[in-house]
């Protein structure tokens, strides 16, 4: 029996630049381009300009994953994590090298990928099961279990389009949970959507890993990677730059994030690929409102997070995550969850501001990741857009504990004690 589940050997993947993901590439462009190329060939024979038009998303990737290992792929946006996962799941072909995959591969996908709204729950179970790689006999033998798990017995013959979103999620997850892959590939970016689904996906991954299957996990959430994986592979610009125990790799990544934050944000290339880039994040700072200082805040003082952007778009929003020095997310500030006190003010200029009445964090170094939205689309996204230090302080006169062994936040509170 082979001990290796996945062996990558000098894997590389190149994409043609110019025709971006959103460029459909019309027939006219292809015809005109073809003629131009011919003409160019005729005039200056064999000028090889082509190589400059290729982007290497992955280059010389070699490693072996043993049976039963849980691997976390770590790296900036655009480092090639998702591309690598797509090669392992056979969706795309490598351009160079090869990967040997031994065992049945399963993927956890976004809720209801492959669900058809017009089909009934029953029909979708069979369709989705087959899409995820289950045999028909296998689905039939687990059908009752799946239905019971999803708790939709009464709606089995109702088209899924009439399901509540909760019901669809339950059904989608029930099918996925009954998949028994030998190798489970999960890209959190692909599996986004419903938070409940995500939570259950993680639980499923944990189970699968414990049962001895191989798991390859791509996520930005370093905390989940550290919780689930034993080994981390750090990718940067399409190359493996570290491969080892997950803690070491994560630490390396955190250090590289800090280096990236010192760079001019507009020059950074590790932007969220989903972004439309009509407006970019120019600068992010966390300001101590009392001292007016940037990126150093005394704990408990009011603070202001300022996000400067290149362009003002309609309906701008920001989703921001603050993580501690270990990479564990501490809090999320999300303007897409509106409050009546939020203000939209044109005179603000090209910037978004977030006021915190009291930055009740314990002392330490924190990182800000954010996603910028506008025009109903994701515009830009940056990991480690800023770092800030929190100095020892007080909240409501109470000193904030100096170290974060038991949590990173101290909320304002009042005790009542007998005597």
């Amino acid at each position: 029996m082979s001990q290796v589940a996945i062996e990558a050997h000098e894997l590389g993947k190149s994409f043609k630049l110019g025709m971006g993901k959103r460029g459909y590439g019309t027939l006219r462009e292809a015809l005109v381009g073809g003629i131009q190329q011919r003409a160019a060939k005729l005039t200056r024979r064999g000028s090889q300009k082509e190589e400059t038009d290729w982007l290497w998303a992955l280059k010389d990737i070699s490693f072996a994953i043993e049976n039963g290992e849980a691997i976390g792929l770590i790296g900036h946006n655009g480092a090639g994590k998702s591309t690598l996962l797509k090669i392992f799941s056979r969706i795309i072909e490598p351009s160079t090298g090869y990967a040997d995959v031994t065992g049945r591969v399963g993927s956890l996908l976004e809720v209801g990928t492959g669900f058809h709204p017009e089909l009934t729950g029953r029909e979708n179970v069979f369709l989705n099961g087959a899409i995820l790689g289950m045999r028909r006999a296998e689905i039939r033998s687990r059908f009752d279990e799946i239905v019971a798990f999803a708790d939709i017995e009464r709606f089995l013959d109702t088209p899924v389009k009439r399901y509540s979103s909760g019901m669809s999620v339950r059904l989608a997850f029930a099918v996925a949970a009954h998949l028994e892959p030998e190798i489970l590939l999960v890209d959190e970016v692909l599996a986004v959507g419903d938070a409940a689904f995500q939570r259950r996906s993680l639980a499923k991954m944990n189970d699968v890993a414990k049962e001895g299957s191989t798991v390859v996990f791509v996520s930005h959430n370093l905390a989940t990677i550290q919780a689930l994986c034993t080994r981390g592979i750090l990718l940067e610009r399409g190359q493996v730059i570290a491969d080892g125990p997950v803690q070491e790799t994560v630490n390396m990544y955190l250090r590289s994030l800090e280096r990236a934050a010192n760079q001019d944000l507009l020059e950074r290339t590790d932007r969220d690929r989903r972004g439309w880039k009509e407006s970019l994040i120019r600068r992010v700072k966390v300001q101590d409102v009392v001292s007016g200082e940037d990126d150093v805040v005394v704990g408990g003082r009011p603070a202001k997070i300022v996000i400067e952007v290149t362009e003002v778009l309609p309906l701008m929003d920001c989703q921001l995550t603050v993580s501690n020095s270990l990479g564990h997310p501490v809090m999320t500030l999300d303007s897409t969850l509106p409050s009546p006190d939020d203000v939209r003010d044109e005179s603000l200029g090209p910037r978004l501001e977030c006021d915190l009445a009291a930055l009740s964090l314990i002392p330490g170094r924190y990182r800000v990741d954010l996603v910028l939205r506008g025009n109903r689309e994701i515009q830009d996204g940056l990991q480690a857009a800023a770092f800030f230090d929190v100095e020892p302080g007080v909240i409501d006169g109470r000193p904030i504990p100096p170290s974060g062994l038991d949590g990173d936040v101290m909320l304002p509170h009042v005790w009542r004690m007998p005597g």
Partner: protein
Amino acid sequence: MPETALATPPEETAQPPARSPRTVRLEPTRGFSRVLSPKELWSYRDLAVQIAMRDITLRYRQTALGAAWAILQPIAFMAVFSIIFGRFAGVGSDGLPYALFALAGLVPWAFFASTLQLGSESLVMYTELVSKIYFPRIFMPFGILVAGLVDLAVSTFLLIVIVLIYGIVPGVEVLMVPVLILIAAAAALGITSALSAINVKFRDVRYIVPFSVQLWLFLTPIVYPTSVLSQPWQTISAINPMVGVVEGFRWALLDTGSAPWDLIGISALSATVLLIAGLAYFDRVERTFADII
């Protein structure tokens, strides 16, 4: 004997003959027969069945008349064509009732046209599947073809009923109908797989197909008989595979006498070429679908 028992390596008895894991090598491929290999298709057969079932089910989901549309569409066209071409323009119909003449051509045509139209969209309609999960993509146009064949079976059956109502009793030629359907299916699958693959890259297909299909309708002897063409052209026209199929349908069902073997033969050949060329093209470009869709 106990010595031999001890000598047996323990893992051989302890390990049950579990599913032997198959190693798949993922590497850059060139040329043909990457995914259209029978072994590969067979290992995904359950998915092929599910996709075909989906396409069959979806075709008339939430329609009041359901599968009756398979015949109602050709009948509606028949009515229009009978009035315009049969009555006003006075187009000949080889001595048959014009309505029946047109319907016998429209039934296989409706299958061909709908397969082309739906099939060419079959990949781009499910972009998220193509970009997120692996399976032999040929199942997408193939599912549309299978759904079309189910339709065609229903409408051919009803066509035979109508023919009988007209008092025509087809002879043994009727046994050729499955062969003719096979020719139409081969041509349709060849063209539709090529179109669906081109559509992944160039969405122009979406605009070209509907009007090309309209044009093709008039290049096929549906509203007129092939006999309007003079001889070398009559035979040559059968390069259009639907010529042999349509004329074959009339001969097989309407008791017209002499068999158009030349037309059927050439059309069968042409359909085979289209099938092989279409699948070969699909096979060549399939590996790039997820990159560009």
